[in-house]
């Protein structure tokens, strides 16, 4: 795993030239990633009716407006709970699925294609199919009735793809031996399988949470009257002049980061110093 790093630290002239160029490139890349974000933070303190430069004066009013906005807080609560639920359920389904994939099943190729389907259906289409499906199914559009299933379905293939390489090599004989010795499936899972796959599962749940939190286009078509964070942001953009939008963006970022970093810390604590292929 430290292959490239070790060969990289050889004291070789060409290497060091390449090394410097690479570091400079990385710096530029980080700049590309961060400049827009930093601009957003900057603008969130701008006392101006329009979203943009010039910077008129410093103000905290946009932030206070957010924390007083019931809609905003509700959207955040919705997204967080939705994210956790989607992550847990999708990961659970994905763990079972990945475990099952170790066996030689009929029509495994077809099953793989079915699993990949939500990813293969491009964004907008992925949303309209639920508009049609739930509409004709006379299911009431709502956070837990339609949006949650959509999120789980969207996250499931990603969770599966993250777990599969890990499960692939898991030796079945260990479980089978335990089962032969009389252990029930739940025990086998809890005592033997789970400890091995735990880091991967945590990583998958983190990834799943991020995916669900960020999911926008499918949610837009499948939602009822309650909003998630991306939908709320989009509605602020579209439905009103919202000079407080940058502040909202920053708040979302902080919340999202906090939850992800917590998950990250959990992964780090479960026995790995560097979560190298945790995604």
């Amino acid at each position: 795993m430290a292959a490239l790093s070790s060969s990289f630290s050889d004291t070789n002239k060409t290497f060091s030239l390449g090394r410097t160029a690479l570091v400079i490139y990385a710096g530029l890349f980080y700049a590309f990633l961060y400049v827009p974000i930093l601009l957003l933070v900057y603008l969130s303190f701008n006392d101006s009716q329009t979203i943009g430069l010039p910077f008129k004066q410093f103000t905290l009013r946009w932030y206070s407006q957010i924390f007083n906005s019931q809609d905003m807080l509700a959207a955040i609560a919705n997204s967080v709970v939705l994210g956790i639920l989607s992550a847990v359920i999708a990961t659970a389904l994905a763990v079972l699925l990945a475990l099952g994939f170790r066996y030689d099943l009929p029509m495994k190729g077809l099953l793989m294609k079915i699993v990949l389907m939500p990813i293969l259906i491009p964004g907008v289409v992925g949303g309209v199919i639920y508009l049609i499906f739930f509409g004709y199914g006379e299911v009431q559009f709502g956070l837990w009735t339609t949006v949650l299933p959509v999120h789980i379905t969207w996250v499931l293939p990603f969770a599966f793809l993250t777990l599969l390489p890990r499960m692939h090599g898991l030796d079945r004989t260990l479980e089978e031996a335990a089962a032969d010795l009389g252990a029930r499936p739940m025990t086998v899972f809890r005592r033997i399988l789970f400890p091995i796959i735990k880091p991967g599962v945590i990583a998958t749940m983190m990834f799943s949470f991020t995916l669900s939190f960020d999911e926008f286009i499918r949610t837009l078509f499948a939602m009822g009257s309650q909003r998630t964070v991306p939908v709320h942001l989009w509605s602020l953009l579209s439905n009103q002049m919202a000079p407080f939008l940058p502040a909202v963006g920053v708040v979302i970022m902080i919340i999202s980061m906090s939850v992800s970093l917590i998950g990250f810390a959990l992964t780090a604590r479960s026995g790995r110093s560097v979560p190298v292929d945790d995604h």
Partner: protein
Amino acid sequence: MTRTKLRGLLLVLPATLWLLVFSVAPVALLVAMSFWTSSIFGTTADFTLDNYKVILDDPIYFKVLFQTLRIAATVTVVSLIVSYPMAFFLATRSNRTKALFLVLVFLPFWSSYVVRTFVWLPMLGRTGLVNTVLINVGLINSPLDWLIYNEGTTHIGLVYVYTLFMTLPIYLSLDKLDPSLIEASADLGAGPWRTFRRVVLPLSVPGILSGCVMVFLLACGAYVTPQLLGGTSGIMFGNVIAPQYTVTNNWALGSALSVVLVLVVLLCLIVFGRKVRLNDVFTGG
């Protein structure tokens, strides 16, 4: 059936059922609906091929479709070029700092997708950051109008928004590299560039393919980014499909357009996948 096979089937059952209900069934309904009749007053289940006829007859649909594929392909290539060195950088950090650099790459993606797209308006607009800097520095006298609301902006927006989906798989691929291969190559006298070209690059191909497929798929379905940033010329197929459901009430045509998009995208993947087995791509090689 053997006991092990039964165990395997039971394990995959929950997810399979879930997907049959929430993935296969809706898509099947979509396909069915593409053959129904719609008017501004509603949709009825009367069979017709008219929707597909309209798509084939009216040149605007294929025009936007090819534009979409073109933009998606360009975005994929640019994303690859931009991301690969970064992935290499990440993979070559020491174990101590690797996590930090990785988290730093992730951090911007923990803001919302809508935010990451929208932020390009105050970046590139007339009163945006780029124009303000250029004017203050004295390079230009009045704001550049062409920075935004065109196809180029759509490209920039899409590359920015989906970078992580390219960087990550490539990084994972590179990170899994077997040290002995590098050492062997060095022992055999190959210089660093040669080692890279002959050993590292080919072994990172699964990650490259995985990233490319992901970004291409995501870009083909883009809706928000072209609408916010694309102006009058940078629209994509998502912007043609969505109004059928929200504005013109022509659900049947919208469904037909959706089916066409999915088929064309799948076709691209299959053609692309001839060179490589797509299953391997998705399982990380």
